[in-house]
C-alpha cells in the first residue's frame, strides 16, 4: 500500500472512531474533545486531497474557535450528565417515546448505509487531473465569482453575533 493509502486509512479510522465515541460519551466535555480529535483527522484528509487552505481553515475555525465556544458553554452550564441512574442502564430501544423512535430510525439508517456500501460500482483509481490547491486561485474565485455570497455571509455573521449576544444576555432587571 502506498503511503497515501496508509495515511487515508489512518485518518479515516481516527475520524470514524472519534465520532463514534462523541455520540456515545456521557460526559459532554469528553465529547467536545473527541470531536476536536475528529476534526484534526479530517484536516489531515483535506491535506491528502491537496486542499491545504481548507485544512488549515478547518483547524482555525472549527477546532480552534467553534469548539472553544462549545467548551465554554459546557463549562459555564456545568452540564450535568443527561440521565438518572436508572435510565442509564436501559438500552436505547427500551426507553419510552421519542428516544425509541430515534433509535429505530438510527438503526434503519445504519442498515441502509451497510446495504449501500456493499453494492458494487463507484470509481476506483487515483483522481484524474490536477488539483487547484493554491490559495491565490481560491481567493480570486472567492472575490470575483462568489463575491455576492461572500458579502452576504459577512452580514449573516454580523446577525448571528448580535443574536447570540442578545439571546444569552442576562436580564438586566434581575
Amino acid at each position: 500500500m502506498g503511503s497515501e493509502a496508509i495515511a487515508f486509512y489512518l485518518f479515516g479510522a481516527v475520524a470514524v472512531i472519534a465520532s463514534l465515541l462523541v455520540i456515545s460519551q456521557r460526559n459532554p466535555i469528553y465529547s467536545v474533545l473527541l470531536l476536536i480529535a475528529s476534526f484534526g483527522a479530517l484536516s489531515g484528509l483535506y491535506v491528502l486531497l491537496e486542499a491545504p487552505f481548507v485544512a488549515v481553515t478547518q483547524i482555525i475555525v472549527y477546532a480552534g474557535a467553534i469548539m472553544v465556544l462549545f467548551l465554554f458553554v459546557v463549562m459555564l452550564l456545568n452540564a450535568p450528565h443527561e440521565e438518572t441512574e436508572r435510565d442509564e442502564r436501559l438500552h436505547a430501544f427500551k426507553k419510552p417515546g421519542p428516544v425509541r423512535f430515534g433509535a429505530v430510525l438510527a438503526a434503519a439508517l445504519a442498515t441502509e448505509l451497510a446495504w449501500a456500501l456493499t453494492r458494487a460500482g463507484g470509481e476506483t483509481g487515483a483522481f484524474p487531473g490536477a488539483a487547484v490547491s493554491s490559495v491565490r486561485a481560491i481567493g480570486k474565485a472567492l472575490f470575483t465569482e462568489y463575491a455576492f455570497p461572500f458579502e452576504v455571509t459577512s452580514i449573516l455573521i454580523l446577525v448571528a453575533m448580535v443574536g447570540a449576544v442578545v439571546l444569552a444576555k442576562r436580564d438586566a432587571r434581575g
Partner: protein
Amino acid sequence: MPSLSDYLVLSAILFAIGTAGVLIRRNIITILLSVEIMLNAVNLSFVAFGRALGTADGQIIVFFVMTVAAAEAAVGLAIVIGLFRHRESLNPSTFTSLKW
C-alpha cells in the same frame, strides 16, 4: 491510492454517525455536536468532488459551509444557555410546553 469512492464512503459513514447522534442522544449539546459531525462529513465530500473535478469550487463551498456552521453554533448555543437558565436541564424532553 484512495479514490473518490473511498472518500465518499468515509463521508457517508461520518454523516450516518452524526445523524444517529442527533436521533439518539438526549443532551442538547451533544445533539449540536452531532450536527457539526454531519456538516463536516458534507465538507469532506465537497472537497473530494472538487478535487475530482479539478476546480476550486469545492473548497469555496466548504468555506461558506464553515462560516454558516460557526454562525449556527453561536446562535444555537446562545439559545441553549437561555433554555438552561429557564429550566436547569439540558434534556430536550423537558421542553414540552408547546406539546398538545
